[in-house]
């Protein structure tokens, strides 16, 4: 189980709401598979909780938020979301949140 991830978010308040959100996590474990993506439904904790993997958040242009958070993965989701190509990824993730 990786102990450090990062995720890119458009709306950080939504991500930090304490409710389950859909995220694309990038595994930061050093080695050949670093940055592997996985889709999850998860709860992000602020401040980070002991025992949970560390989560770093970045904006849509990759600017890193300075404080670490932590993430509790509830479910692992499919490797790609069902949606029309070129459509908005964040809207697709929010649709999935609402349907669960």
């Amino acid at each position, binding site marked *: 189980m990786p102990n450090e991830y990062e995720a*890119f978010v*458009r709306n950080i308040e939504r991500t930090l709401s304490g409710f389950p959100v859909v995220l*694309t996590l*990038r595994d930061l474990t*050093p*080695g*050949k*598979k*670093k*940055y*592997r*993506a*996985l*889709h999850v439904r998860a709860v992000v904790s602020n401040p980070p909780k002991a025992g949970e993997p560390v989560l770093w958040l*970045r904006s*849509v*242009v*990759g*600017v*890193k938020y300075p404080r670490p958070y932590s993430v509790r993965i509830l479910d692992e989701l499919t*490797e*790609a*979301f*069902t*949606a*029309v*190509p*070129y*459509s*908005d*990824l*964040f809207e*697709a993730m929010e649709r999935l949140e609402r349907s669960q």
Partner: protein
Amino acid sequence: MVPKDLRSFLKAIEASGDLITVDQEVDWDLELCAFGRLACERDAPAILFRNIKDYGLDWPVFLNPIATWRRLAVAFGLPPDTPVPELYRIYAEREQNLIPPKTVADAPCKEVRIPGDKVDLFELPTPMVHEGDGGRYLGTWDLVISKDPTTGWVNWGIYRFMVHNERLLTGFPRPTSHLGKMFLDHYVPKHQAMPIAIAIGCDLPSHLAAAATFKLGGNEAELAGGLGERPVELVKCETSDLYIPASAELVVEAEVLPDRIAQEGPYGEYPGYRTGEIGHGICARVTAITHRREPIFTVDVTGLKDCSSIVTSISGAIAIQRRLEKHGVPVAAVYVPPEGAVHLAIVSVRRGGAEVAERALQTLTARRALLSKIVVVDEDVDVFNLAAVLHAFSTKCHPGTGIHVTHYEGRANTLTPCYSQAERVARSGATAAFDATWPPEWPREIIPVRATFDSSYPADIQQRVLGRWKALGL
């Protein structure tokens, strides 16, 4: 002679002093491309790293194949110090002499074949290019092949692709690109996956052709033949009826999914910025990988003065010149400086004025609006001399009446950094033409006279000064 493949190109640039080979270990996670980025910004040689952390000596990585005019000259089989205007002239000449490709039954790029169910993209030394990118970019200096199922037209293009997991890639060929249009027009409506092949480390003319600004429906394989002055050899893919350059070091075969998305980007692209287009890409599943034994992985460390800005500088400028000629603009020369990151074109005209500037502006934004600034200068300004262009712009462009702006929607360049996120989503934007020409209605006798050496002295005085220049110790 034009180098026939990547390996002969490496030998040629090593001989010309334009390649550094490094045997010490380098980390694929940022360190590798930090070297490459600095090399671009310093116009330094290309770099071949032989020892990559986690991958050892299995996969050497070659950075920035043609990020300088010197390396482009070598790729054309010319002396490395060939002047830029001469490179433009030779490119334009070869572009007119298309040479059809020929197919071959087998090729070195088939020496190792990995079927889809055995593919693991993390076995490739795909680098993390910039800190804060959305992931590791496999496609930076690639050649992506796709086919129009209705006409059979085959498109070659350079499009970015990011590793998502072991078999999935995400990418951002813009929706207005040839590949994007082909996918949206012919595959998505039928819910069909579109086969593609991503070829890496091909002969340089093939990459130049793929990256070139070329007409819709044009055959880039023929263009590659013309640029390389010999037919390009093509070999069939393992899992589709697409044909790839036989010279490739590595080929990733995939199908773009008509009903799936995943995170793509953000990524630091040729404009020199990482813009906010994350979340509007495509998703492709790998169906096979083939490669040479001891393959060489190639990366364009994108950003200011990268390979694509050099290629577009030359092919884009020639395409602009031809388009303006076709639409009646009295164009004399065009330069797209690499420092302008493909957002700026300098156009010299035989007759200037507002009407000409406006016509150039409308012509160059009619279909895809990749440029955001066009500087129009008189014919006596050398477009390749940026000091002369800046002088003309600063002094001749009337700030109240000399700036022409057109706004558009649905065809803007979504990578243009100054656009807002809302403009990016709507693909709306604007282009300005800066008219730095004298109004044609001004009588000759009142046009300001340049106070320069070439304009302010009689020819005999100029000759005498030039003749005595060195003798006087100047």
